[in-house]
């Protein structure tokens, strides 16, 4: 019986090793550092959005492998660090200009932000009053488009704060719609904890960052 047990064990382990190794065997097929990039992407993101039909192949190519030690080593030319950023220096200043334009338009309109409690996306009584005043202005300006940005404090993960920020933006937007604002005038976006107004690690600062920032949308 004992022998039978170990005999059963061997093929099981062996099979598993083969399974484990099979994933690596394709590694050595291709070589050469600067392999050709796949197709240039289209799908720039139309208004409806969607999924790109043009995705480069990202499966294993196993470039840049180690060649092992050698008693009489031949010279290996070390390249690499070839990556280059396609920086668009104009882009940052364009963004800044658009942000300033939004801020100026929002200040002129007298739009105010709504603030949230820790871990929460519930609109407070104070928040309702702020949104009511915002709603009046938006309704009396049917030609404008308003964006609610959801923001969070620095606590918690970047990723989950994007979800929480969206919940805050949605809560504020939904309340504005409840107050009679036309849905087509409203849009939302979440910035999570990535665009804080304040960077101290204290509640006085956190409370300013947990906000639904209501702005007049000036760009696309």
């Amino acid at each position, binding site marked *: 019986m004992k022998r039978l047990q170990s005999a059963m064990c061997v093929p*099981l382990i062996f099979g598993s090793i083969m399974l484990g190794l099979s994933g690596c065997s394709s590694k050595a097929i291709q070589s050469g550092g600067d392999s050709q990039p796949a197709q240039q992407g289209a799908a720039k993101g139309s208004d409806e959005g969607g999924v790109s039909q043009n995705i480069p192949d990202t499966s294993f190519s196993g470039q840049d492998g180690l060649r092992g030690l050698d008693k009489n080593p031949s010279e290996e030319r070390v390249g690499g660090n070839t990556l280059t950023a396609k920086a668009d220096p104009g882009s940052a200043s364009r963004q800044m200009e658009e942000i300033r334009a939004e801020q100026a338009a929002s200040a002129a309109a007298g739009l105010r932000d709504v603030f949230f409690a820790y871990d929460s996306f519930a609109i407070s009584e104070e928040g309702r009053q702020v949104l009511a005043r915002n709603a009046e202005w938006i309704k009396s300006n049917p030609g404008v488009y308003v964006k609610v940005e959801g923001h969070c404090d620095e606590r918690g993960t970047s990723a989950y704060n994007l979800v929480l920020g969206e919940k805050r933006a949605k809560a504020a937007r939904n309340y504005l719609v409840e107050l009679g604002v036309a849905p087509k005038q409203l849009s939302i976006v979440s910035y999570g904890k990535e665009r804080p107004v304040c960077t101290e690690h204290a509640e006085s600062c956190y409370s300013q960052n947990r906000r639904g920032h209501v702005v007049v949308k000036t760009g696309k």
Partner: protein
Amino acid sequence: MTFRTVVIISLCLSVGLAWIIESGATDVFLEATRPDFQKIPLAVAGIDNIGGADSPEGRIRLGNRIEEILKADVRRSLVFSLVDLPGLGIKVGNLGTGPNPEFKKAAEQGVSVIVWGKAGMTNDAKDPDVNMDGYVYDAGSNEMVGGKRYAGSTSVVRLMAHRFADELVFRYTGEPGIARTKIAYVSEQGSARELFVMDYDGHDSRQLTADGFLNLMPRWSPDRRFIVFTAYRNRNTQNIDMIELATGKRWTLVSLSGLNITPALSPDGNFLAFASSHEGNSELYSLDTRTKAMQRLTVHAGGDLSPSWAPSGRELVFASDRSGGPQIFLMSMDGTNVRRLTFEGDYNAAPAWSPRGNWIAYVCRSPKKEYKICLITPDGQKRVQLTAGPGVDDSPSWSPDGRHLVFSSTAGGKSQIYMINADGKDLERITFTGTHNSAPAWSPAS
């Protein structure tokens, strides 16, 4: 079948499974806890300077610079323990191409491997070439078992040392080593956050994007040629973009309405898992990169996000707030067999499955309400809080050898990137400049 037979068969099965998951490598958990785990004692006897060449940076001798980088790589490999030869009373003079007579004495004192070499620069003032030779003495055979000869421009000096370190790890473990791996991360530039890539030790950082707004949460393709990330292309919408490192070429992969966040490519590169809120709240989707078919994986009123692939590519771990605060869940890659993994604490998020399969790292909120890094086994049987103290820790990411993690932390005031061993030792800060560095993602090895 007796009870004992059942036990033995299931033991065989679990050994077999462990083999699949770890692809024949050492178990990091055993390494971390087994008191008898023996690292291989290795000494760097020295990298001699040849040709009297100085490095262009700071007039430090090239050989000494390479030696320093090599020693740091050896220490971080966790495969070797770095032995100091003078500390053993062993002084080697000039090093040649053959083993030094003193090496045998070191071997007698338990040193298993001794490496040495030489480095210099050509006299071409305009475009000098760097040459480095490295040799390996093995105590077992009492001879030089092999070496490497490298040549390249002055900009690849660090890379030469890293390559040699990885060859050492490869020689003694069969694994490629992590010294040539890279870390993608997000760095604040003015009021914008852009993607950067640096070496695993924090050196040689390069900027990848300059959009002027937000680019977040980078993840590598398995072939290390691409990074997928969350991009705000026009401040009002988020896309999932892909960038090719060598060229800076960009693709927009997903541009659905609402959130398009936390992309993660499967280990074979054939599937892109991501979260999108285009059907209401944040749900997980899987995009087949060959057929472009998109499959919805989760159906729940709660928010689902942050998918991370098991090394087998058959399962995903993700965060979901379907039970109140965010918790960690597991599911099969087709969205079936969903089960909750974390039950301790009311906030667990940002899971990252170890490349060895045996641990899942995540951000946990401690009883003191601090956001720290925790580890849990995929069966939920073992849980460890890896970091402690003040500061918000975020975005754990595994080294490809499964022995280290990088994460961001505000422990020092501003958010910076840190490295830590999977056993909680050797916490090391690796970014020092800038106002905010976050979202580190460790590249696969090559």
